[in-house]
C-alpha cells in the first residue's frame, strides 16, 4: 500500500505540468506520484515529431519530443516520483481516494491519496462511428495509429493513401507519408471547411499538391483482404452524398482523422459528472470535478489543439490541488456560487462555475465556438449587464478561445450568472 498527498493519472504534458504546479503550490515533491501506462513520460507528444510546439511557452518552435523533454527535465530536477508502465484500473472517491493500478514489476498497487488529478488525455474517435458500409479490410488506420507506426517504429503503413478528415493530425500525416515516399491521393472533408490550422493546409497539402476535397466523404471501400481503393462523393448541406458525384480512388491505405474524444472511463467509474458537450468532466474555478478533491486538466478535460494551453491549464490544476491538500477546512468554501454560461455560438466554457471565496484575482475562462464567425465580438454579461466586449476578426471551431475575468469586477454584485456570448461587432 502506498500513501500520497496527490496522485496524478497520466504522464503526458498535462500530468507533468500539473505535478510542477503542485510543487509550486507548496507540496513536497515526494508527496506526489505520477502514474503513466506507457514506457516513457510525454504522452502523445512522443509521436508528434513535427515542429510548431512551444511558441507560447518557450518562445521558440520545438518538436513534440523536444517539448516533452523540457518538462521531463524539470520533473527529474525536482525529483518528483513517477511510475512508468503502470496502468490505473480504477479510482474510488471519498475523503481519501483509493487508486488501483497495475504493473509488471509490482503487480496490483493500492494507492491512497488526498487528491487526484485526472490527466489521461484523449483518444481518436473510433472508425465504427464513421458509418462506412462494406468490409473491414486491412489498410484502414486512424491517423494517430499511422503516426505511431511511422514515427516510433519506422514502418510505413502503405504506399497509396487517401485520408478522410482534415483535422490537424490528418494534415500532418499527409505530409509525413508524402515525405516518406507514399503518394497521398486526396484528403476528403465532410464539412465545407477544414478544422485544421491554415498553416497546416499550406505546408502539409499545398506544398505537395495534395487535393483537399471539402464537402466530400468516403462512401465505399473496395477490397476484401486489403484496401484496393475508395469511392469518394460530394455531399450536400445536410452531409448526404450526392448521387452521380462518386469518384473512385485506387489506394492501399485509408487514414481516418475524425476528431478526438476525452478518455474518461476512469472518471465515469468514480462518478465524476461528464459534460455532454466536451465529453470531459464538468469543473469549477479550481478545475475540480463534481467530486471533491478530484481535479482534471489537459485533453481529458476538453480537447486542446495547442499543447502550450494544456501546460498552462495543468499548472493551474496542480496549484489548486496543492491548495486543496494543504487546506485544513473540510466544510467546503461557502460563499457565492456563480454559473458561467456559454450562449449564442459559445458551445461550452471551462470552468462552468466560479465560487467567489476561492476565486483568484483573475480567472481564465476557456471556450470554443460552434461555427465560423467573422467580424464579431465576444461579450461578457453579468446577468443582463454588459461587462466587457472583445472584438474578434475571426473565430473558428478549431481554435480555443479565452476571456479573463477580474475578481474586482464580480465582487459585491448580486448576480448568479456570467454569460459569455458572440455578438455582431
Amino acid at each position, binding site marked *: 500500500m502506498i500513501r500520497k498527498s496527490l496522485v496524478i493519472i497520466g504522464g503526458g504534458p498535462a500530468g507533468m505540468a500539473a505535478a510542477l504546479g503542485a510543487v509550486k503550490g507548496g507540496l513536497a515533491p515526494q508527496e506526489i506520484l505520477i502514474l503513466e501506462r506507457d514506457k516513457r513520460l510525454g504522452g502523445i507528444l512522443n509521436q508528434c515529431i513535427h515542429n510548431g510546439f512551444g511558441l507560447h511557452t518557450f518562445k521558440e*518552435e520545438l518538436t513534440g519530443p*523536444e517539448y516533452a523533454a523540457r518538462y521531463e527535465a524539470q520533473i527529474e530536477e525536482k525529483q518528483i516520483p513517477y511510475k512508468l508502465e503502470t496502468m490505473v484500473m480504477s479510482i474510488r472517491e471519498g475523503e481519501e481516494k483509493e487508486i488501483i493500478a497495475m504493473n509488471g514489476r509490482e503487480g496490483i498497487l493500492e494507492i491512497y491519496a488526498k487528491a487526484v488529478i485526472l490527466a489521461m488525455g484523449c483518444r481518436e474517435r473510433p472508425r465504427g462511428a464513421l458509418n462506412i458500409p462494406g468490409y473491414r479490410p486491412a489498410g484502414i488506420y486512424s491517423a494517430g495509429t499511422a503516426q505511431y507506426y511511422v514515427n516510433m517504429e*519506422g514502418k510505413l503503413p502503405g504506399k497509396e493513401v487517401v485520408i478522410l478528415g482534415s483535422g490537424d493530425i490528418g494534415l500532418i500525416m499527409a505530409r509525413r507519408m508524402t515525405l516518406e515516399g507514399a503518394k497521398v491521393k486526396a484528403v476528403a472533408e465532410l464539412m465545407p471547411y477544414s478544422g485544421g490550422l491554415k*498553416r497546416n493546409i499550406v505546408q502539409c497539402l499545398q506544398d505537395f499538391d495534395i487535393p483537399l476535397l471539402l464537402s466530400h466523404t468516403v462512401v465505399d471501400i473496395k477490397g476484401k483482404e486489403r484496401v484496393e481503393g475508395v469511392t469518394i462523393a460530394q455531399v450536400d448541406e445536410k452531409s448526404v452524398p450526392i448521387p452521380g458525384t462518386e469518384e473512385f480512388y485506387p489506394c492501399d491505405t485509408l487514414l481516418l482523422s475524425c476528431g478526438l474524444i476525452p478518455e474518461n472511463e476512469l472518471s465515469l467509474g468514480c462518478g465524476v459528472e461528464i459534460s455532454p458537450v466536451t465529453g470531459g468532466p464538468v469543473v469549477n474555478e479550481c478545475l475540480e470535478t463534481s467530486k471533491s478533491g478530484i481535479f482534471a486538466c489537459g485533453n481529458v478535460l476538453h480537447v486542446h489543439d495547442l499543447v502550450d494551453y494544456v501546460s498552462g491549464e495543468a499548472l493551474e490544476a496542480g496549484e489548486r490541488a496543492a491548495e486543496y491538500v494543504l487546506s485544513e477546512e473540510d466544510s467546503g468554501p461557502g460563499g457565492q456560487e456563480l454559473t458561467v454560461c456559454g450562449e449564442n455560438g459559445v458551445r461550452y466554457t471551462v470552468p462552468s462555475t466560479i465560487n467567489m471565496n476561492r476565486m483568484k484575482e483573475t480567472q481564465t475562462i476557456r471556450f470554443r465556438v460552434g461555427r465560423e464567425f467573422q467580424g464579431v465580438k465576444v461579450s461578457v454579461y453579468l446577468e443582463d449587464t454588459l461587462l466587457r466586449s472583445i472584438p474578434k*476578426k*475571426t473565430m473558428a471551431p478549431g481554435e480555443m478561445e479565452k476571456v479573463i475575468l477580474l475578481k474586482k469586477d464580480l465582487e459585491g454584485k448580486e448576480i448568479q450568472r456570467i454569460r459569455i456570448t458572440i455578438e455582431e461587432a
Partner: protein
Amino acid sequence: MEEKKELTCIGCPMGCQITVTLKDNMVTSVSGNTCKIGDTYAREEVTDPRRTVTSIMKVDGGELPVVSVKTKESIPKGLMFGVMEEIGAVKVNAPIAIGQILIENVAGTGVAVVATREIKEK
C-alpha cells in the same frame, strides 16, 4: 516579364488570399493581405520559400528502432526531398543525446540535422 502568384497567408486563422506581383523576379506589389505579417510572409514565400524538415533516422542498438530528427534551421523548400533522401540513407548508433548533430551539412544546404529526442542504449 510580369507574373502574378496567389498564396494563402499562414500568419493567423484569417488565412487572407494574397496576390503577389513580380516583375523580372522582383516583387512589385502585394495585395489581399490585411496586415503587415501577410506582406512579409508573401515576399519571403515567393522569393525564398523555406521549411524545417522533421523526420526519423534509423538507429542501431537503441530503446527505439528510430530517432526523431529535424533540420536545425529551415532549408529551401525545393530541397525537402533531397534532405529526406539523405536522412533516410543514414543509420546511427545509440546512445543519442537530444540536440546531437547527426548530419553536418545535409544535401549541401549548410544546415545540420539534429536529434530531437534522447535514445538510450537497449
